[in-house]
């Protein structure tokens, strides 16, 4: 006899029609699975009643692996075959990983491909495979708990994930045999869990300090619709870092060297984590490092000392908060409430500082570890079709800016990041050379200034532009992103109406290797980018002057210039061409300005000459009307 669940009035499904759907919070430190049963969203516990599955996988060899608590406990003794915090590696290239804040201490296999693989006893594994192992475990748990196969899942990802990271998460689900209904941004899931959709309209902030990532999101509820106004964060800051700071303090106090062996460091980290949890309840904690590791030290960590250790890290979370407020163009006073997500928000100091910053008491009623999974379950329940109507419409934002390549290898952004979708925006571009009849349009995604630092999405050509002088053609490039995140780009020459377009689905159809190759650097290159941009712009400006002067000289040089003047201009032209080969943007600028100055007289003569010829044979009266 089947076990039945209660449904909402009028929503009882026919036998075999109820579709099982779960929400999965695939976290850096911990993962959870939740579903809606008997009208209530709840996390599904394992046989021991534990809802939280540590996101740790231990490879035993012979295709055997252990996931969860047992693997986490094995981390001390078997550090190189036990993989944790793998979410940080999702969709990252080898180059990215080298830049990650020291936390990753695995052995990576040297391969041709850009996809990093970790050496383990069970062979080399990628981040996607490790995540798939975690998902498989949760899938098995859900199917046991619900008694049937799952129709679909909603998996949450940080709002900050770029397309490669989102794709990697989808690949992991596919590998685990799960059908992804959609990826949901974690903050949006948290807001759904709190039922903010039933609340008064207003602006809500989601402060998500998880194990390995920090995300701040500003959502606006408008006529029952969630709109993500802005997101910001730090993809390499989380509870792990807080534990590390405490661990370092302990090591310093206990006189343990930084370069001690892996097992010892992990052991101290575990002690640090435990101490942190105790300090959420009591004023001080005694830390005892026992003899198991050949240590004997004990000391006391007080809450005030802890606060002192944590404050610099908490401060680091407030910087993105400020940026998100700026992006969303809202002030602290306009914020209705702040939702706390992630285990690290249990730390009292974090709550204090957040309350202080946003000037309102944060929401902590739902277990901050479970709130995202619960929201995902509610969304999965709706998407799979178990709910008749009043679906929540969630608006998403474009996570990274979209733009096109312009002269000199620069990116001109057309749609900025954090724009809500669907979105459409057009921008006019023009030709660079006289008589240019075709234009290559290169669609890019990313925040960096140079093409080479951004992700290439597509290339197409607009042909059949009528020959005109440089700068006369008006080419309107329209970017359109529909509700599914499908981007289409159209280029249209305004005078002749010739048109060309391309459709891009950034998240799909890319091979792992391609994704890895196209990975962008993070946002930490601002200064370098500005310098590069200056240089490129200067080179383009120089080239434009050179081209214009060359064509002018060819047309009128002999007629309007004396031999000496001509020689002078030719010399200036050559000088600029030479300087423009170099990388000194100030020198290029100077040479460009000089040449501009020395050619002013020539330009004036050409102007007069063309006016004279245009007016020849006409009476002044004809022009005075």
């Amino acid at each position, binding site marked *: *006899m*089947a*076990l*039945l*669940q*209660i*449904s*909402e*009035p*009028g*929503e*009882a499904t*026919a*036998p*075999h029609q109820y579709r099982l759907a779960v929400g999965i919070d695939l976290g850096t430190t911990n993962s959870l699975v939740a579903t809606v*049963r*008997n*009208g*209530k969203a709840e996390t*599904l*516990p*394992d*046989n021991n009643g534990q809802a939280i599955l540590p996101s740790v996988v231990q490879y035993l060899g012979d295709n055997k692996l252990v996931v969860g608590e047992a693997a986490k406990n094995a981390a001390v003794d078997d550090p190189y075959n036990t993989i944790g915090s793998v979410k940080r590696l999702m969709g990252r290239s080898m180059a990215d990983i080298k830049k990650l804040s020291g936390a990753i201490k695995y052995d990576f296999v040297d391969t041709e491909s850009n996809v990093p693989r970790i050496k383990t006893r069970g062979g080399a594994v990628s981040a996607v495979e490790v995540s798939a192992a975690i998902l498989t475990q949760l899938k098995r*748990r859900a199917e*046991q*708990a*619900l*008694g049937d196969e799952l129709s679909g899942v909603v998996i949450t990802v940080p709002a900050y994930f770029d397309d490669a990271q989102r794709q990697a998460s989808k690949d992991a689900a596919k590998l685990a045999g799960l059908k992804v209904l959609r990826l949901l941004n974690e903050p949006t899931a948290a807001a759904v869990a709190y039922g903010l959709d039933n609340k008064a309209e207003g602006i809500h902030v989601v402060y998500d300090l998880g194990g390995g990532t920090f995300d701040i999101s500003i959502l606006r509820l408008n006529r029952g619709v969630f709109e993500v106004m802005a997101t910001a964060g730090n993809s390499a800051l989380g509870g792990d870092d807080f534990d590390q700071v405490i661990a370092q303090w302990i090591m310093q106090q206990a006189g343990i060297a930084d370069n001690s062996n892996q097992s010892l460091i992990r052991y101290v980290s575990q002690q640090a984590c435990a101490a942190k949890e105790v300090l959420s309840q009591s004023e001080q904690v005694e830390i005892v490092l026992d003899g198991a590791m050949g240590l004997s030290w004990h000391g006391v960590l007080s809450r005030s000392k802890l606060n002192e250790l944590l404050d610099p890290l908490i401060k680091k979370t407030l910087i993105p908060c400020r940026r998100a407020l700026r992006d969303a163009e809202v002030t602290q006073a306009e914020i209705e409430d702040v939702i706390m997500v992630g285990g690290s928000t249990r730390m009292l100091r974090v709550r204090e500082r957040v309350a202080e910053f946003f000037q309102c008491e944060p929401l902590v009623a739902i277990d901050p570890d479970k709130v995202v999974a619960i929201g995902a379950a509610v969304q999965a329940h709706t998407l799979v079709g178990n709910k008749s109507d009043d679906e929540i419409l969630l608006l998403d934002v474009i996570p990274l800016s979209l733009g096109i390549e312009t002269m000199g290898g620069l990116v001109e952004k057309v749609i900025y990041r954090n724009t809500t979708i669907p979105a459409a925006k057009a921008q006019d571009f023009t030709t660079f050379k006289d008589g240019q009849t075709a234009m290559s349009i290169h669609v890019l995604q990313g925040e960096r200034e140079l093409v080479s630092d951004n992700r290439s999405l597509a290339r197409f050509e607009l042909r059949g532009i009528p020959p005109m002088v440089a700068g006369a053609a008006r080419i309107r490039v329209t970017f359109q992103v529909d509700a599914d995140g499908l981007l289409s780009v159209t280029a249209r020459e305004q005078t002749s109406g010739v048109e060309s377009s391309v459709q891009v689905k950034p998240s799909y159809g890319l091979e792992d290797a391609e994704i890895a190759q196209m990975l962008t650097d993070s946002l930490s290159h601002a200064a370098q980018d500005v310098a590069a941009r200056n240089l490129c712009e200067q080179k383009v400006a120089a080239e434009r002057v050179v081209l214009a002067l060359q064509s002018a000289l060819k047309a009128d040089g002999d007629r309007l210039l004396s031999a000496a003047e001509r020689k002078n201009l030719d010399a200036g032209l050559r000088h600029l061409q030479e300087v423009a080969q170099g990388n000194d943007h100030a020198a290029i600028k100077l040479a460009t300005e000089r040449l501009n100055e020395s050619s002013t007289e020539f330009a004036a003569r050409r102007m007069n000459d063309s006016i004279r010829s245009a007016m020849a044979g006409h009476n002044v009266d004809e022009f005075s009307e």
Partner: protein
Amino acid sequence: MSITLTEAAAQRVISFMTNRGKGVGLRLAVKTTGCSGMAYVMEFADEFQPEDKIFEDHGVKLIVDPKSLIYLDGTELDYGKEGLNEGFKFNNPNVKGECGCGESFTV
């Protein structure tokens, strides 16, 4: 004519109702569908219909329409666990056969 529920089932229903925050009782019904003829319907009820029969047991109001009652008379509603899965069971004396999965039945 009676419909009853076990202590375990009553506790669950009450907790789900409290969590939901509204409703007058639990509606039990039978509809003709499924792979073996009939299927149970179990819904939160927000209002009574004039023809409804109401059975109260362990503090829970069980609401049944007269047509369904013919098939449900004598049923005891239970709540049980099978491994990680848990849910409600109908112990229905009228049932003569069930489909393999037990989601639908014949009388």
